[in-house]
């Protein structure tokens, strides 16, 4: 049971500012993903919440208690590290029980909790082994079990799946989500992988250059990106942008066409997701440059007035490079951004 509140947290390393005035509330039992490219400050923010790093200014509250002056062990948190940090000199049992031993719990309680969490992570056969005798995936399971055994209010995870191969990552993703949902803990999960973020999160905080650009549900982040950065970062392939010039009364000139848009009198950027385009009789005129059949879809990279533009079409379409396509954007999926602020325009 713990709400996490981050109030005006900033962090500077010398002249470099890693985090600018972060404000974020994470609800009890929420699965919050901090998503961003490397160097965006997501790991720094996680480490500040963990207590492994001190914020330059600001406050961290966990479960209604201010914790930023407390050592990690008094914050009611447990953590899963990117490189697992499974102790090589201890058996799997002692690794999972490490935190419990530090709390000086009686032996039978340690045994009960270690066995329960090991069962949960399907590693009960490995309790006597050492970390050197485990595969990467098994080590990852030990690291998660060690965190769960603490029965913490909050679990912090720093890119926990990034060292696993693709197939194992997909499997662990689903399993982690299930286990964490059952454990009733609040979870903060740092990743640079948007698929991980979309598939696991209750809410995603998209971070860029030390700021949270948008904190919303995965679908909201995908459908209604708050800024051009989010639109370009989330989605594979990312959102398309085209410059739009106002034609008065909510009409906009985009790629030689006139499209309905917001009532504004300044240049905006028109944006549409590649999968929200259809081949039609009227629409944007694009010249196909590269055609990539992806099985389920056809990814067509085109050129509209010299700008790069991608469309995801049905795989039974026959499109060749050099073809001229007429792409109709689905009207309710069109988004507009102010090029000066890069923020979304309603």
């Amino acid at each position, binding site marked *: 049971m713990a709400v996490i509140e981050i109030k005006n947290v900033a962090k500077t390393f010398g002249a470099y500012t890693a985090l600018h005035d972060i404000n974020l509330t994470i609800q009890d039992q929420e699965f919050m993903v901090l998503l961003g490219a490397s160097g965006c400050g997501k790991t720094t923010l996680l480490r500040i919440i963990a207590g*492994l790093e001190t914020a330059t200014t600001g406050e961290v509250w966990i479960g209604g208690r201010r914790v930023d002056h407390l050592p*990690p062990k008094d914050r009611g948190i447990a953590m899963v*590290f990117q490189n697992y940090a499974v*102790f*090589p*000199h201890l058996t799997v049992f002692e690794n999972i029980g490490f935190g419990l031993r*530090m*709390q000086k719990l009686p032996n039978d309680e340690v045994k009960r909790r270690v066995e329960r969490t090991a069962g949960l992570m399907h590693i009960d056969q490995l309790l006597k082994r*050492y970390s050197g005798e485990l595969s990467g995936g098994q080590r990852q399971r030990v690291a998660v079990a*060690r965190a769960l055994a603490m029965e913490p209010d909050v679990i912090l995870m720093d890119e926990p799946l990034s060292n696993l191969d693709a197939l194992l990552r997909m499997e662990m993703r689903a399993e982690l989500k299930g286990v964490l949902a059952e454990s009733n803990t609040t979870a903060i999960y740092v990743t640079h992988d948007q698929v991980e973020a979309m598939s696991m999160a209750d809410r995603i905080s998209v971070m860029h250059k030390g700021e949270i650009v948008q904190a919303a549900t995965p679908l909201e982040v995908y459908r209604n990106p708050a800024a051009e950065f989010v639109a370009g970062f989330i989605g594979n392939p990312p959102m398309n942008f085209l410059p739009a010039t106002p034609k008065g009364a909510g009409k906009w000139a985009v790629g030689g066409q006139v499209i309905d848009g917001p009532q504004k009198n300044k240049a905006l950027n028109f944006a549409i997701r590649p999968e929200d385009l259809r081949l039609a009789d009227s629409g944007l005129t694009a010249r196909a440059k590269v055609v990539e059949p992806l099985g389920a879809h056809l990814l067509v990279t085109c050129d509209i007035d010299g700008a790069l533009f991608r469309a995801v079409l049905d795989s039974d379409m026959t499109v060749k490079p050099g073809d001229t396509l007429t792409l109709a954007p689905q009207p309710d999926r069109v988004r507009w951004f102010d090029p000066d602020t890069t923020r979304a325009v309603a």
Partner: protein
Amino acid sequence: MNARLLPYVLILPVTLFLAVFFLYPFALVAKQAFTQGAEFTFANFRDVASHWKFPISLKNTMLLAAAVVPVQLALALLMATMVNRMKKGRDLVLYVWTIPLGISDLAAGIIWLAIFEQSGFLNSMMSGLGLVDQPVNFLSYQNPMMVFVAIALAEIWRATAIMLVILVAGIGLIPKEYYEAAEVFGASPWQRFLRVTLPLLRPSLQTALILRVVLAFEVFAVVAALGGTLFPVLMGEIYSYQFDLQNGNAAAALALIVLGISIVFTLVILRALRVPKGATI
């Protein structure tokens, strides 16, 4: 060059060097220890071990090692931990701390003699402060404890750095994430030292301890400078058999005894600090 042969060819010069300058002389010493005239005998060992000075020098050597090595181990661990935490000036501090390593053991003994002798620093300081009326002779037969302490201090000063260097390298290899994990899971700094640093440092501790213990059994010049004949040790006895008594056979026998003790202690250290089967450190 055949790739399978190449490693052996490369290691040949060292092997030859060791064979000529180490194995061969060693065989000679061993032969000397087990012979009197031309016949094979254990008499040299019997003679050496039954001499009245043998138990005293054995006891002194052991006592000195027992007093010096644990202090050095603790100091070296403390210093290595401190150096490891430093951000600036780490190298400078490390160089300064390892200066005694560059001084020969006899010179180290003489430095400490200059402190403790009757006209030394310690006496002039104490009389300057008015603590004593006249210089005290610390290093006399009337002060055996003082002689022991002076020798132990000199040894600690001289040879802690060899352990320090090994332990600093070992500590530097322990990934930072282990400490962070231990911290998050509730280990205090002292618990982190006991439950992360020490176990993960086992290979370096083995090396450092073996080296240091073996060297402690070979203590000679510092004792000679500070204690002279007041504090007989095994190496001193070997020296006096060889050069004062011109008894090379007895000297060789005693040297083999010291070797035997060193081997036993090496095995004990290896066993005590072994890495559990299956664990990879």
